[in-house]
């Protein structure tokens, strides 16, 4: 930090306070005439962009004073660049006109101790946590080999999977398939999950997974056409933290059920705990909205209330089902709990995954 920065930012804060959005009587910010920047640490083209673009106009309607909301993209270094930038922002400099959207790809490097990470989730204030799920699927001939939920007949097949990298969200499916005893070889260098699906459609890959919204739009037509068959979902979490069926796919077995039905796959022990911990970090609270370090109580209350209002819209269930899937959009204390479970992975689970990445893929994270 530069000498004098503290003094200057204090002075700046004092000046800014004069022009700060006036607080309403009931402890809410008034953002009339303001422009809120919503920073997304990815490019305009990814899933986080879709998510933020979906929420931005709704949030603008719901915030007091209806500020203009601008989604700003700051891609780089697998989202760690944008997150590091956000870490340096102080609430006093922005007074509620800056929010940040993180994703599973921001959480995983943080959990795994990536050297590029200079951000600390504990410093930020969560106001929304959006969940999602994931579904694995197979070509019809291989799916037919499964005996109900028992996947052990697939063990003599060589699988190819188009992957974005073993340290990304892909570690959840890769670890799951390994626990089932499947021999899956990841082909790296895929730019997005859509490319993985294309590889599957071209017959080059013979196993794949997609997050729920992409599964609905991209894979359901293949299933209807008979060129793909569902295998399992990753599931969802109930209030007690158990893995249960995904509400978007209630008829689909979860990985937990498939694992229980498959000989040699255990739903207890360190491997299962590690999978579950990273599943929780990656899916049920995949995308979160934060206010920067030092956010005032009223700012947190204002944004939480605004997201509550968005959720309470009469048409929310309808418009969000296609875009986000039927997943909890958590605010308030629930969001804080979701953040906690997504960013506090037990030390054993973390050690197991780091060791597994090293042994299985030769990836060392320091």
């Amino acid at each position, binding site marked *: 930090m530069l000498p004098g920065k503290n003094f200057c930012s204090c002075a700046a804060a004092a000046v800014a306070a004069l022009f700060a959005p006036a607080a309403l009587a009931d402890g809410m910010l008034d953002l009339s005439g303001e422009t809120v920047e919503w920073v997304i640490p990815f490019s*305009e083209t990814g899933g986080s962009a879709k998510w933020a673009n979906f929420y931005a106009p709704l949030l603008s309607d719901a915030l007091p004073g209806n500020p203009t909301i601008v989604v700003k993209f700051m891609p780089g270094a697998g989202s760690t660049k944008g997150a590091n930038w956000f870490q340096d922002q102080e609430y006093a400099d922005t007074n509620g006109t800056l929010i940040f959207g993180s994703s599973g790809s921001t959480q995983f490097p943080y959990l795994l101790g990536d050297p590029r990470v200079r951000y600390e989730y504990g410093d930020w204030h969560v106001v929304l946590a959006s969940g999602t799920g994931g579904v694995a699927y197979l070509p019809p001939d291989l799916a037919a080999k499964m005996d109900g939920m028992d996947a052990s007949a697939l063990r003599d097949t060589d699988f190819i999977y188009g992957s974005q990298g073993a340290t990304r969200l892909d570690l959840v499916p890769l670890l799951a398939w390994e626990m089932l005893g499947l021999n899956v070889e990841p*082909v790296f260098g895929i730019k997005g999950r859509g490319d993985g*699906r294309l590889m599957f459609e071209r017959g*080059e890959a013979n196993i794949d997974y997609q997050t729920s919204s992409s599964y609905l*739009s*991209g894979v359901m037509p293949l299933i209807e056409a008979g060129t793909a068959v569902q295998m399992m979902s990753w599931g969802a979490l109930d209030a007690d933290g158990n893995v249960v069926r995904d509400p978007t796919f209630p008829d689909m077995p979860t990985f937990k059920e498939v694992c229980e039905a498959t000989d040699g796959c255990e739903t207890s022990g360190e491997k299962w705990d590690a999978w579950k911990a990273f599943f929780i970090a990656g899916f049920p609270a995949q995308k979160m909205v934060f206010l920067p370090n030092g956010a005032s109580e009223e700012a947190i209350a204002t944004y939480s209330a605004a997201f509550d209002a968005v959720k309470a819209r009469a048409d929310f269930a309808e*418009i969000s089902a296609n*875009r986000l899937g039927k997943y909890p959009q958590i605010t308030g204390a629930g969001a804080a709990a979701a953040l906690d479970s997504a960013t506090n992975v037990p030390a054993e689970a973390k050690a197991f995954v780091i060791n597994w990445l090293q042994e299985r893929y*030769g990836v060392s994270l320091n």
Partner: protein
Amino acid sequence: MEIVGFALPALSDAVALTIQANVLLHLVLGVAMGLCVGIFPGLGGIAGLSLLLPFMYGMEPMSGLALMIGLVAVVPTSDTFASVLMGIPGSSASQATVLDGFPLAKRGEAARALSAAFASSLFGGLVGAAFLTVFILVARPIVLEFRTPELLMITAFGLSMVGILAGRVAIKGIVAAGLGLLAGTIGEGDSAGALRMATYELPYLTDGFKLVIVGLGIFAIPEIVALLRQDRAISDRPVLGGGWLEGARDWFANIWLSVRCSTIGVVVGVIPGLGGSVVDWIAYGHTIQTTKDKSSFGHGNIRGVIGPESSNNAKEGGGLVPTLLFGIPGSGSMAIFIGAVALLGSGQIEVGPSMIKNNLDITYAIVWLLALANVAGTLICIAASGGIAHITSIPFKLLAPFLFMVISFAAFQSGQSLMDLVALFGFGLIGIMLRRFDWSRPAFLIGFVLSNPAETYANQAVQIASFRFRKSFEDGIDYLVSPIVVVLIVITAVSIVIGWRQAKNIRSEGDVPSGSKRAPMIFLLLVLAYLLVAFVNASMIPDHAAADRVFPRFVAGAAILGTLVLLVQMMLKPESNPLFADREAGCREENGRGLWETLAWFAGLLILTSLTGFIIALSAFLLAFFRIRAKRSWTGTALLTGTGIAFICLLAGILNRDFPPGLLQELARLPWPLT
């Protein structure tokens, strides 16, 4: 028959959807915005569409589509202005247009070049739309035939264009392409995340360099600096009036070339995964290969404009196939398009595998909006080109500071870091050296563009093939040697042979005199030094990340061999040999100003920006430049500076972008635009 029965009702529905007053109104609005965005070098469809996104939510679907399609369709039309008039690639789709379009502008034939380009763009756009109308019904299975080995072979075919663009000394062109390929590998490897020529201490490098910056650095900066040194207007003779009719006639005389290049554009656009950045080069290479008199390329051969311009609008049509049918964006702007479509109306249009089945009428409406947008855009551009062409008669010293301003702003948008400007400057320096010593800049750029696909597809094809061979030998061979691969191998081989035999006659960047041995030799040794460092750096990647090691090491190794051959030749050959090409040697009397002095102006802007942020630095730069270098009166200086600052603030304000911050911004919080 079944297909026809299915398609015809959708076709008439599409007409009804398209021909509505408010749809056409939105289309014209989109076209106008697209033309405005495209005219700025470095800003393209991504910037334009991001601007529209906030308005898409809940918009009437056809109006929203018209707005977006109108914008996307005409960016490759209007980006021609910068390419032809200023030698600055307007976007990645118009890089090859610079090679012959700009020499034409220098000869005062800007209007002719522009109208030939616009006629070609229009034709390409219409061919693309017509092709799509039929092809979109049967595209899915055909596109799925293009697996990784086929994609790899198309990449190889693109690289074979280096052969024809290599310049007088073939090995120099190949080494230049090698340098481009290596520049493309800088950063985190795609396969195992190993770092190549980068460190986590400099996070900017780990992401690799962006095409916008490399393209502007390699082509724009050397051109701006060269023109500025000569202290004259772009055109060295009076601007010809009424050239637009001649340009249209030129296009008609070469209509078959235009047909072929449009086809190339559609085909490359249709295949997901390659992106459109290389299509103009393939079209340009094809144009040279099929022209009898090759010696005039690079000096302003109108065919060199018609070829690439026919292909780049056709590509936008082709790019809709992966976007609409697979939900996989063919380019960055298409990715935003997909996201935006979901915002329209109540989100009923779902781009992806179900599009043809559920929304064929809308699919056709999109295709025709594309055609209409091309017509509207071309008419507006042709109407404007006569007037805009006069920009080439303005003294360049009054133009150059604004160009530095705009390209710095555009470069900063790619990474929003001060390092973007440093990288722009660095690649500018490389471009100046490549230009000076006659190392093919197109070869460098083709290498850079194809570096990532070449490496990724090669790694993936090897991995998947070895997996198939494990199953059975036949399975592996079937995978690798498909009929499409064989056809592509033949085309590539023909292209290489033609290139090999013809390259000596083609000077895509004009004639370069030879000078003394010393300067070209020093540059060669610098290149060799970089190659050696890159080779050692790649060799140090550990075994578990071997997939990230093979490609850079192979390219660096091959380029080192080429460099050593050049070194030996340089020792043996006399000074008059083209090996020792050096622009500084022959053009001394043309260049009123020194290279370093001219470059120092830009460096000054850069250094000042790092201290005070962009807007303050730019104000100082513009004031100093107009007063000291252009010798304007104080009133004139103030007026020009004020106009420049107001303009860039307006542009950034509309696009909602920031400016590069400096040290000052770290210390104090300033109001926009000083932030």
